[in-house]
């Protein structure tokens, strides 16, 4: 909660948080917000302009663009978040194990991480989609497969750092079990690291999934997804440019909010960063985060 307070002090961060939270809520309760069923086709309204009952107009099948935009939050943002969560849990678990027990487990896990990290993200995603076929599920699977190694790496480092901390050593001496130590001492400290990596990967993943949908490799019809909406608008891009506008702006708004939030989170968690800390490790971490952020796009 202290963290939240510190975050909210920054006005930009507060606004970003509001945008992200609102997006998530609207997506979660899409049926309440959407004025029409998102997949209801009505050829009479093909390419109709904005009207009172269809605020953003209609697409090539006469479907309500606003409703599709709202339902599009689910695959574009919510599912990405879920995949990120899965990758984070999986990676964090392995990272904990590796960092805490060290030894051979650590060595093996880190070699596996090395291999995973040596596949560039976009290439791996394309490989999985290429072999298993286009589709949202396969892309999300590819995300989990690709991203867990990042989490495992960073969590391992964090755990090793904290495992050597005096208070953890003290707890060991007191006879606390492995699980207890992890839960009480290491997990809370490492959580902030997870939050930072996750938030910085989030924006790029949103961009990536919409990019793949744009190429026709992502979500299947008739489901609404922002990249897919742009793909559909693409064929009439110059006759009806307004169709590109809504999904494009939605992506920009959400991604920049997520990125701002990620930055603010980083600063709030590590005030040293704000005054450009001296620790090279922090700096290197920041660097890698920056890199990851644009692995997509």
């Amino acid at each position, binding site marked *: 909660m202290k963290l939240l307070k510190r975050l909210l002090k920054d006005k930009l961060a507060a606004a970003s948080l509001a945008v992200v939270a609102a997006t998530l809520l609207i997506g979660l309760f899409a049926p309440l917000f959407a004025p029409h069923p998102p997949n209801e086709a009505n050829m009479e309204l093909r390419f109709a302009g904005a009207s009172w009952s269809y605020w953003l107009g209609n697409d090539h099948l006469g479907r309500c663009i606003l409703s599709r935009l709202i339902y599009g939050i689910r695959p574009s943002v919510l599912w990405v978040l879920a995949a990120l969560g899965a990758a984070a849990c999986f990676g964090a678990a392995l990272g904990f194990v590796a960092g805490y027990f060290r030894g051979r487990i650590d060595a093996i896990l880190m070699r596996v991480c*090395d*291999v995973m990290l*040596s*596949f*560039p*993200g*976009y*290439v*791996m995603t*394309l*490989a*999985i*989609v*290429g*072999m*298993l*076929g*286009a589709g949202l599920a396969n892309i999300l699977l590819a995300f989990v497969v690709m991203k867990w190694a990042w989490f495992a790496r960073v969590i391992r480092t964090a755990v090793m750092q904290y495992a050597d901390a005096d208070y953890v050593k003290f707890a060991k001496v007191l006879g606390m079990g492995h699980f207890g130590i992890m839960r009480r001492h290491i997990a809370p400290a490492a959580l902030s690291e997870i939050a930072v990596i996750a938030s910085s990967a989030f*924006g790029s993943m949103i*961009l990536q999934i*919409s*990019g793949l949908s*744009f*190429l*026709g*490799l992502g979500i299947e019809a008739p489901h609404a997804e922002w*990249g897919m909406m*742009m793909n559909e608008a*693409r064929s009439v*891009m*110059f006759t009806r*440019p307004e169709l*590109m506008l809504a999904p*494009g702006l939605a*992506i*920009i708004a959400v*991604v*920049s909010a997520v*990125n*701002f939030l990620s930055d603010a989170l980083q600063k709030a968690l590590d005030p040293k960063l704000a*005054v*450009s*800390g*001296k620790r*090279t490790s922090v*700096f290197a971490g*920041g*660097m890698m985060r*920056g*890199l990851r*952020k*644009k*692995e*997509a*796009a």
Partner: protein
Amino acid sequence: MGLYVLKRVGALAPLLVVISFLTFILNGLSPMDPAEVVLHAQGVPSITEELIAATRAELGMDRPLLARYWDWLLASIQLDFGDSYITGKPVWSLLGPALMNTLKLTIVSSLFIIALSIVLGVLCALREGRWLDLSVRGVSFLLTSMPAYWLAALMVWYFAVKLDLLPTSGMDSANSYVLPVAVIVIGYAGIYFRVVRSSMLSNLNEDYVLYGRACGIPERRLTMHVLRNSLQVAVSVFGLAIPIILGSTVVVENIFAWPGLGTLTVTSILGRDFPIIQAYVLVLAVAFVLFNTGSDVLNAAMNPRLRKEL
């Protein structure tokens, strides 16, 4: 130093083996029986179970996995990735030229990204918190949040259609580079600019700068020192940037009909041309690993402190 290089290169071999093996078994994920695919590609009119079995034997599919992997690896090293299912041409005859075209795009873009991010990064770090810094950071932030295809559409509409300055697509002349390169540069310069900037800033706060300043060394000479030190760090980041950009030109290539790897791969995925996908994954993964090691070694050569750490 020699030892370090040896160690890194030594670690490279097993990594490459594992990567190639993963790529090899990737093909097993595909839902199609390779024997059947080959028969269809040959246009055999009626495919019987016996014929499939015979073809499997002919393709060596009944042999142990490792033996097949070994053959495949040997062939791959000689750039023999088999034939495309769709066109029947050798994969490398399609992938090779596409790789060259993508490399051209990547290298030109990388040069611009590096130049732009160094210039902006240094300027912004020296004017930290002033309007130049703030505005450049703000704009770069917004631009990195933009989907590449959206930006591309916008730029095509404005520069190619409205102003009629540049071609809309293809790779016909030097002008063809302008728009795709611009889209890639805009997408990435923001990130690398931040790396340079924060590297500069952290160096500016180092003790030696304070000490130097206390000793009355002129600010300009200090700045030069800081610049040199920060760029050393940036080099390793840029080393990594090239393969990342190489792997992510997919969207841009598709929009601008650039005859490169990205276009080829997307077409292959949509045409279920598995040998091409497999070769693409292998080539890029290997390139990524090599660049990675290369930039590490380069970095270690420039910065002896790092060598001990690793």
